[in-house]
């Protein structure tokens, strides 16, 4: 590689590095703002729930993460992508729905039982439908049970550790910290890029010094 090419590449790297540093500073600033808001909301929640109301005593004994980071390699830099699972709050709601449908089918069966011969065909038809519905419901219940066996705790929202009716500031605090988590992946990716640029710069600088020594 020619010395002028090396110098040009070094200049490009410096410009790129400063761009990344600027982006990192901006991302850091946003992350700090969200964190500040999060701490403030937690303090307000502690004021509502009591001094011991928001702390490690409330942590659940069994925890499952709701966020996962997927790391991918792009141009020899690590890119951190966040994957969030929204906790399903309606697991009991699904069970209620199943029982409601079951009641409905029983009532319908009672009505069809009273029919005369003219309604016999309709009754047969409705019986078939009911059988299908029952089959669907039973499969639905099986699915539900299977799901509960596979993953019983991951569906819990961490807010529930602090009670059923939590103050809104705790909810806002959770939102702020969720944003910080999302931002942290962005910051981690930028840090990785900066580190990679630094290594490349050092390597090129060494190469340049060797070329200068050779030409001297």
């Amino acid at each position, binding site marked *: 590689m020619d010395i002028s090419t090396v110098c040009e590449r070094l200049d490009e790297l410096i410009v790129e590095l400063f761009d990344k540093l600027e982006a990192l500073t901006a991302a850091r600033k946003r992350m700090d703002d969200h964190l500040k808001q999060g701490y403030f909301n937690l303090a307000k929640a502690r004021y509502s729930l009591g001094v011991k109301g928001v702390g490690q005593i409330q942590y659940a004994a069994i*925890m499952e*993460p709701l966020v996962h980071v997927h790391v991918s390699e792009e141009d020899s830099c690590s890119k951190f992508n966040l994957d969030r*699972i929204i906790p399903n709050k309606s697991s009991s709601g699904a069970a209620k729905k199943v029982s409601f449908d079951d009641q409905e089918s029983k009532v319908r069966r009672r009505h069809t039982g009273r029919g005369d011969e003219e309604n016999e065909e309709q009754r047969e038809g409705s019986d078939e439908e009911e059988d299908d519905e029952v089959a669907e419901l039973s499969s639905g219940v099986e699915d539900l049970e299977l799901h509960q066996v596979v993953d019983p705790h991951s569906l819990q929202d961490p807010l529930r550790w602090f009670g059923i009716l939590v103050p809104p500031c705790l909810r806002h605090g959770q939102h702020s*910290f969720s944003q910080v988590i999302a931002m942290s992946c962005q910051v981690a990716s930028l840090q990785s890029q900066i580190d990679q640029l630094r290594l490349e710069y050092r390597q090129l600088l060494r190469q340049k010094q060797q070329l200068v020594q050779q030409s001297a």
Partner: protein
Amino acid sequence: MARMMKAGKLISVIGDEDTCTGFLLGGIGEMNKERKPNFLVVEKDTSVSEIEETFKSFVQRTDIAVILINQNIAELIRHVIDAHTNPIPAVLEIPSKDHPYDASKDSILRRAKGMFNPDDFR
């Protein structure tokens, strides 16, 4: 779905009670099969060696992608953080409730600053 979730890595946190509570509310908390959590609540009586050991154990764990640590706690184990140069897990220093973020103390930024050695420009 459970298998899909296992594919991703975790975010761990070392910090004071408020920092850990906030991030656990955000949904990063995990208690693995050996009952080892991915977080450490640093209290007044938590020793530096304990923090150091926990940080090292997080670094060695293959299921952790990002380590969040309060900057004032990171200052206590600076030599260990400076020695960690691998891109994964990424170490992020964050401010705590009582200590604002100081960019001049951040390991990554200090490394970037160290690029510009006056001797290199002679």
